[in-house]
């Protein structure tokens, strides 16, 4: 491995080359299959897989897709799929996972030698071991900021400063990044190879004299790593968008792939993983791309049978188009086109936190706003799409005019897209994202055989097909159930004053709370949305911005019964120019290490972990200590 090489973070220009290499390798070897790992947890991943599948099918590469929820599942699959195969060079894709995880923990060095790992992931920062490894390729768009070798700490097992002394060293005492504990186990083979050579070069005495020097260097590296990982988790370009760029370069782009990348982008907006400014920038790019596919506006003549004896006659009509993607204005009202205006506003976190619609007072206020905007309440309570078109069109201007009095700012509106298929399906990007997310998280029959995230992944996958309007509608219905649960239980938590204030964060502990909708709120993204709802509600009550830790209700699912999810949420959503990410991942790791408890940290979001319900209080106490130390 050449340390001078600038890692394997590759820009758009090199992506087709990687694909070309995979293709030629696979055609040359007996084992042609490519493995794809994808988290069964978010809409962006589902959309990204659909794009990747199109690209792989176009070059006739067989593949297997494995939806997963934890790294343990990845490992398990790799053992069965790759273990016996020590001759062929294989390729593994990681969609929306892998960048942050130390892959040297997942694969043995011998395995990695025979593996090409391609990571299409929006999670940042990239783990330094992945960055430096020659067989790991990480897609990165330089528009997201540079990832340079200078910023990157040295990988394990290769720097001069790490030697045998680290083995058997007591675990680091305080606040050290969890990644450090990996140091010892990772690349022993490398060390073994290097040590004799070193010994021959240096006499014992010389080595002895260099010891403090090396200790200092080691400390420097550790500091750098801590600093690097301490910046916290952020998100770069969504995976679906990265893959769409690749498709564009391969001249494989078409409206469907564009729609998928819009879903990925909107997913990041809805879950606040991208700043509104960045969203607007990319949205504009996609708007231009959508115009390329838009109907040309030309008119064609068709011959039709005239009425009665009139005989055939020609009529001029617009060129018929099967599917189209049209830019449009959307509002932060959930699933507006599948609900009434009143209910959509009532249940959307944006309006709910500002008007406190969980109170009667808030509802009155909402009705007042609707009245001021000139919408008869009767109409506002009917299906939005059934409302008079003139009223529908007035929504934007009226909101702008009267929203300000009700703390609805201009940012309630955002540019988005609508997809039309024939005359049957008409879907907005945000509604689709809500629907797909609900399909991934909300189970219709809890406890049944199909109650597993991997099963729901394929439901969501199918719902993204262009003709599957029914699938996505079912998802949207589920998401409305979730939104109702969010409002009632979120409002309840605020009403009960369930919040606990800690040094740098607010804490909500739902593991002991009486919650009506445990199933609906126990899922990662649902919990994240509840957290964001509570955070906003507190901010709107003029209590200032603060990080938030939310302990979810105890899971009833047989697979992980007795576990609670713990979610850490930043004080505010991402903003332009802020590099500070979600640092809860590191805090959770440290707290978990100090605690001898059953804690699962191998999910794909570092800021979400699973803790045994009995250990929650101990864990929170430990987290409080870590927080205190950090703030000192």
């Amino acid at each position, binding site marked *: 491995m050449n340390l001078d090489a600038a890692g394997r973070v590759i820009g758009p220009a090199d992506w087709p080359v990687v694909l070309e290499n995979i293709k030629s390798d696979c055609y040359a070897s007996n084992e042609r299959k490519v493995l794809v790992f994808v988290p069964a947890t978010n809409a962006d991943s589902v959309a990204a897989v659909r794009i990747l*599948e199109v690209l792989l099918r176009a070059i006739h590469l067989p593949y297997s897709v494995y939806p997963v929820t934890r790294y343990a599942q990845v490992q398990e699959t790799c053992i069965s799929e790759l273990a016996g195969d020590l001759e062929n060079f294989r390729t593994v894709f990681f969609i929306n996972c892998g960048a942050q995880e130390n892959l040297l923990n997942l694969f043995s060095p011998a395995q990695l030698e025979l593996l090409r790992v391609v990571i299409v992931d929006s999670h940042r920062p990239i783990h330094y071991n992945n960055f430096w490894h020659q067989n790991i390729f990480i897609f990165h768009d330089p528009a997201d900021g540079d990832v340079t070798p200078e910023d990157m700490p040295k990988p394990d097992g290769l720097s001069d400063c790490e030697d045998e002394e680290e083995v058997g060293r007591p675990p680091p005492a305080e606040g050290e990044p969890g990644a450090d504990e990996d140091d010892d186990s990772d690349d022993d083979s490398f060390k073994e190879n290097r040590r004799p050579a070193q010994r021959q070069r240096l006499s014992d005495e010389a080595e002895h004299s260099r010891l403090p020097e090396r200790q200092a260097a080691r400390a420097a590296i550790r500091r750098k790593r801590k600093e690097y990982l301490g910046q916290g988790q952020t998100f770069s370009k969504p995976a679906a968008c990265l893959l769409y760029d690749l498709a564009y370069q391969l001249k494989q782009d078409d409206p469907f792939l564009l729609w998928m990348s819009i879903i990925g982008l909107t997913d990041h907006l809805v879950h606040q993983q991208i700043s509104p400014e960045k969203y607007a920038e990319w949205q504009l790019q996609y708007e231009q791309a959508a115009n390329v596919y838009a109907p040309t506006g030309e008119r064609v003549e068709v011959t039709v049978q005239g009425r009665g004896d009139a005989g055939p006659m020609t009529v001029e009509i617009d060129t018929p188009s099967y*599917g189209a993607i049209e830019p449009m204005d959307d509002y932060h009202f959930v699933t507006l086109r599948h609900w009434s205006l009143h209910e959509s506003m009532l249940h959307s976190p944006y309006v709910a936190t500002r008007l406190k619609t969980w109170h009667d007072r808030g509802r009155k206020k909402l009705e007042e706003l609707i009245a001021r905007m000139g919408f008869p309440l009767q109409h506002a309570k009917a299906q939005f799409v059934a409302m008079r078109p003139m009223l529908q069109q007035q929504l934007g201007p009226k909101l702008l005019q009267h929203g300000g009095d009700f703390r609805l700012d201009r940012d309630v509106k955002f540019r988005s897209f609508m997809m039309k298929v024939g005359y049957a399906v008409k879907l907005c990007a945000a509604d689709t994202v809500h629907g797909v997310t609900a399909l991934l998280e909300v189970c219709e029959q809890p406890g049944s055989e199909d109650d597993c995230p991997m099963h729901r992944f394929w439901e969501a996958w199918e719902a993204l097909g262009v003709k599957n309007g029914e699938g996505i509608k079912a998802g949207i219905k589920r998401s409305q159930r979730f939104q109702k649960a969010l409002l009632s239980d979120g409002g309840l938590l605020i009403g009960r004053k369930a919040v606990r204030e800690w040094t740098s964060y607010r804490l909500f502990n739902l593991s002991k709370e009486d919650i009506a909708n445990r199933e609906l709120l126990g899922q990662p993204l649902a919990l994240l949305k509840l957290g964001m709802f509570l955070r906003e509600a507190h901010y709107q009550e003029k209590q200032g911005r603060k990080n938030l830790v939310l302990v979810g209700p105890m899971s009833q699912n047989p697979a992980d019964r007795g576990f609670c999810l713990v979610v850490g949420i930043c004080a505010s959503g991402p903003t332009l120019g802020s590099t500070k990410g979600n640092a809860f991942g590191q805090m959770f790791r440290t707290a978990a290490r100090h605690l001898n408890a059953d804690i699962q940290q191998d999910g794909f979001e570092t800021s979400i972990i699973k803790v045994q319900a009995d250990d929650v209080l101990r864990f929170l106490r430990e987290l409080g200590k870590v927080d205190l130390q950090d703030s000192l």
Partner: protein
Amino acid sequence: MFGKRAVELINEIANCTPENLPAYNDELVRLVIEEVNEHYNQMSDLVRSMNRSGQDSAEWGMEHPEEASALVVHHACILRNKRLLMTYVKERAERIKSLKWSSRTAAMSIRPQLSATEVEFQQAYDRLLTKYCRKGTGVGMDLTLDTTPPSDPELSVRVRKDCGEVVLPSGTFFLKKNTCHIMPREEAEGLIRDGYVEALEHDNCLLRWDT
């Protein structure tokens, strides 16, 4: 009536369903050929009488209109019978070919219905097709399995029931529940029938109206 037998021959095959073939009607074919020969003899007689008269054909025709029209009718009948016989043979050959494509067992079961030359034809056609389907000399897949060309020879399937490691001609698959794999259509079909996997429909086209 002239040509009636040949029409009978055609009717025999026309009244038969496309996946069946009536026995080769040796007797009727012979009778039709005899009829043609009879027409020929009649024509020859007339031509001979014309030659004997020593006139050129136009003059002879003017003087003997009955004989002249008889000559034309006999000739037309010969052509018609030939056409019908050809149609009979051609239609049978086409059916022998199409049965080979639609059903292997049917192709064997009609063997007794065929004439000696038709059997020869069938065997030659079989040889040709097998050669074309064979790897090395031809395309390397059995084209008669599916007469409509599949949209894609490979199918992506999603596993519905755990069935562990499965070794198929195209490779080894670890069929774990809720994973997706690409496999050749013909290998997938058995697994789909047994309910282990289901085909995933890639409906990802926004560009055309589906017919």
